[in-house]
């Protein structure tokens, strides 16, 4: 069956460092992959979308890579700030209209 894996353990880093979050998937061949941010008690907020023919996508301090051979996406936040602390969700198109989400990784940036 289709499966998306994100590190369930929280990632703790120091302010100013680069945070790298991983999304691995199996039994998928997604054409698109999206990353969302979710704060406690709030809905997910869209960050970036990357297509299968794009190796890398950047937006300000954010960078996403998409390796269809490894079946992996990496999400980087450079020069991290305490305000970046949140849960980050990876989502794939799964051959139907809705998204399939991973369970998310909680990022904590220490000042």
């Amino acid at each position, binding site marked *: 069956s289709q499966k998306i894996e994100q590190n369930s353990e929280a990632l703790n880093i120091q302010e100013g460092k680069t945070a790298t979050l991983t999304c691995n998937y199996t039994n998928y061949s997604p054409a698109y992959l999206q990353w969302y941010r979710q704060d406690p008690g709030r809905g997910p907020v869209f960050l970036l979308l990357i297509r299968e023919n794009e190796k890398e996508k950047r937006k300000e301090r954010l960078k996403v890579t998409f390796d269809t051979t490894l079946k992996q996406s990496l999400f980087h936040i450079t020069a991290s700030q305490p305000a970046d602390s949140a849960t980050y*969700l990876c989502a794939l*198109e799964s051959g139907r*209209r809705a998204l399939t989400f991973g369970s998310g990784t909680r990022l904590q940036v220490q000042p």
Partner: protein
Amino acid sequence: GAGVSQSPRYKVAKRGQDVALRCDPISGHVSLFWYQQALGQGPEFLTYFQNEAQLDKSGLPSDRFFAERPEGSVSTLKIQRTQQEDSAVYLCASSPVMGGNNQPQHFGDGTRLSIL
């Protein structure tokens, strides 16, 4: 407001009661999705509307769950004879285009449902 609005924000019901959750999508958005999110998990798809047509309801966990969008704007998710396992956050999302999985989805802040 300009975003997706959901009401109520919190709902407590006794087991066996019926509940109705409302979603006001962004005006003009064609696609509307309902998701269920358990604590510590990602959202899980329930159902999808394109305008007033419910094109996919494969994620609804049982026939106690029913969703409608009669005029292609506001949507209601109804849960009949609630059970404790229905306790979760119910998220609504909308998208301006048909399909939606290759476009960003705009989420509301959800309704947190607790069944006692």
